[in-house]
Every structure is written in C-alpha cells, then in structure tokens.
C-alpha cells in the first residue's frame, strides 16, 4: 500500500489525477492532497494519492553526503 519509492509525474489531467512513472511502469494517482505539482516532479504515493513532493534541494544535499561517505570507505580500502 505504501510505495516508499518516488515516482515521476508524466501527465496531469484537469480532474486532479495524474499518470506517474516508476521504472518504466505507469501508475495512476490523485494529486488532490498537493498544490503546485508539475510534470517532471517526483512524488511519494500512498494508497493512490500523492502525499508529498520530493524536495529537490534537500534530496541533492543528502545524495552528496552519501557520496562523500562512500568516498571515505573507498579511501580506507586503498
């Protein structure tokens, strides 16, 4: 029920529904619990509803931090 993985918004319809994509497969979800979703945004879906957007800046910062942690391990292995 809880899809923990972000999906990309491909198409938004007038009735507030959207087509989302994950790993080549498409899903339908309602956007009625969010404002200002645009095509290309990533969202978290729960029980057929997008419940939150992925905040790009924070995601990038976290990815950067984890890359640095990976570097530490690689250096230790040298």
């Amino acid at each position, binding site marked *: *029920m*809880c899809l*923990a*993985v*972000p999906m*990309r918004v491909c198409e938004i319809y007038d009735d507030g529904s959207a087509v989302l994509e*994950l*790993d080549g497969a498409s899903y339908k*979800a*309602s956007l*009625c*619990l*969010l*404002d200002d979703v645009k095509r290309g945004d*990533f969202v*978290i879906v*729960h*029980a*057929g*509803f997008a*419940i*939150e*957007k*992925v*905040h790009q800046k*924070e*995601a990038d910062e*976290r*990815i950067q931090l*984890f*890359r640095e*942690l*990976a*570097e*530490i*391990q*690689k250096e*230790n292995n040298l």
Partner: protein
Amino acid sequence: MKYIDEFRNPDAAATLVSQIKNISSEISGKKIRIMEVCGSHTMAIGRYGIRQLLTENIELISGPGCPVCVTAPSYIDAAIKLAKAGHLICTFGDMLNVPGSESSLAAVRSEGGHIELCYSPLNALEFAEKMPEKEVIFLGTGFETTIAPVISIVDIAIKKNIRNLSIFIAFKLIPPALYALASDPEIEIDAFLCPAHVSAIIGADAYIPFVKKHHIPCVIAGFEPLDILFGIEGILRQISEKKAFVENQYDRIVSAGGNLKAQMLMERLLEKTDAEWRGMGTIPGSGMKLKDEFKNYDAQKKFSVRIEAEKKSSACLCGEVLKGKIKPPDCPLFAKSCTPSNPVGPCMVSSEGTCSAWYKYSRP
C-alpha cells in the same frame, strides 16, 4: 532509477556501519533499545539485514506501526457483520486475512460476501457511483498517511452528492501512541526511529512536544538502507551526547510543518476520539472520527454498528510484539502453527507485520 541507487550504495553503508560501531563503543553499559514505529521500516530493516550489521548492544525493536496489526479483533468482527448484512465492503487487501475473534473477511468472501479489494479509496467511490442501489462501505484503517486519502473520498462524495458511500473508521494517530509507549514502565525505549510518511503528513515539528516531555530522541528517517543506518547513527550521536531532540533526516520529503492541505482536510472533516489498539488497549485521543455533521458517511452511525468487547483470548502474542516486549521467535506459535500462509495473528498477516518480517528475513 532516480532517488533509489543513491540511497543503497554499499560503500556509504560500510562507512556508516563503522561510525555506528565507533559511537556505540563509546556508549558503555546498558543496551540501547531503538524502536522503529513504522511497519515499512520493520520490513526494510529485515530485507537489508540491518539488524545483523549492528553491534550487540544495539537492539532494534518494532513498534505498533503496522495499521493492520493494531486493528482490534472487535473491528474485524463488526466489518464481517456489515458484509454479512449484504453491503459491499471495500478494503485494502491486507485486511482480508486478519483474524477476527471467530472468522475473517476472506472466509466471508469465500462464502459469497461481496468484498472488493481496493488499491485506492477512490475505487470505493467508483463502486458507489456504479452501483447506486448498493451501500458501499470502505474499511478506513490506518495512520495519518492513510487517513487523508481515505477521507478525500468523503469530501468528493459530499460534493457529488453520492449518498451510498460510508467509511467504517478505525483510524489511528502515531504521536499519542508514542506517549503511551514512553509512559509504560515495562517498555524501556531509548529512542524512536520515527515513521517516514506519517511524518510527511504531520510534519517534523509534531514530535517536539513529545520530546520535550519525555526526553527521548526522535529521528525521522526514510526507508532506504542508508537512510535507516544514518538514522541509527543520528540516534546514537544524541544518546552519546546525552541530548534529545527531533532530527529530521528525511527532509527531502518531510517538512517541518507537514502537508498542510492534508491537515486542513482532516481538520475540516474529523475530530479526535479515543481508539482501541490491539494489544495496547484504549489510548485516549489516539483515533479520529468524522464530525457529527458528516455522520451519513460514518458507517458506524449509519448502520448502528455495535463494536463488542473482545470475547476470547487467543494464544497469539501480537500485543506483546507490538509493544516491543517480546520478539516474534519468543512466541511459541512463531514459524510453527503460525506462518504467513496460515497466520494466527495479524502481525503474521500483513507484509508490514513484525512477525512476518522476522519470518521472511530473520529466521535462524
């Protein structure tokens, strides 16, 4: 796949594991008990073998975070009665095999009861529109993350004047459960790994009053292995520095204030009530129900459902598991008469249940 591989990098995990070992060796003495409140964390911890990566003095215990598991048997019994009365019952699939005190919805379904499995509550709305002659009842269980989607259909039904739809509600709120767990002298918890998507709705700040009162570290983490390891590291850092605060490590999704649109919808339609949790009893203010002005959408009122007190006690120790008092293998039925294909208790039914996660990933 975007936003996935980055959070599963084995090198980063190795660094985090060695940092966790360093900090935990500094914290001498007693065991550190960390409770993950969310069923999806329980699954991820099992799937990625995170328990096995940690030092012996760190114990990860699963809390009451699987909505199916905490649903009281009396609720299942009442849902069965509604199905037997000939109404169309719409439900998320994982409720189907949960044992009530005598039967399950799956059994009623095989006897011809009309029960439809829904991926989204919107499916129930579609049934109601398609079959105006039927009363459609959606089984509304779940935490904050699920409450908002479920009551959205009430909002739409009101606007579209759909009258043959109602919700049989057993909603539960996470923060009141934290207070109940922290106040139970038999359960010693040093920190909470707070749920990811419940927090997306309620916001990181929602835990501040709890931390102020109980001085227990609360760290919000995502579901990926690096998220969980980093969350555990954050918890240990707080413990070793003798601090307790709310740390939001899942800020790529969770904001301080949460999803205001969902919160406003909940405030408009719902009010707080007491709720019964399987194994934990009634926790004051831990549930939500529709306000009286929307009573036509509340199945309990619409069909005068009586929720009976629990009749017989079963040998299942789910209640103890949900409170973190015992681990699944401590239950005499675990992996013997109780397995995922033949579950005795709800913790073995739901894939998010603690017993099922242990069965799948941590059997000796």
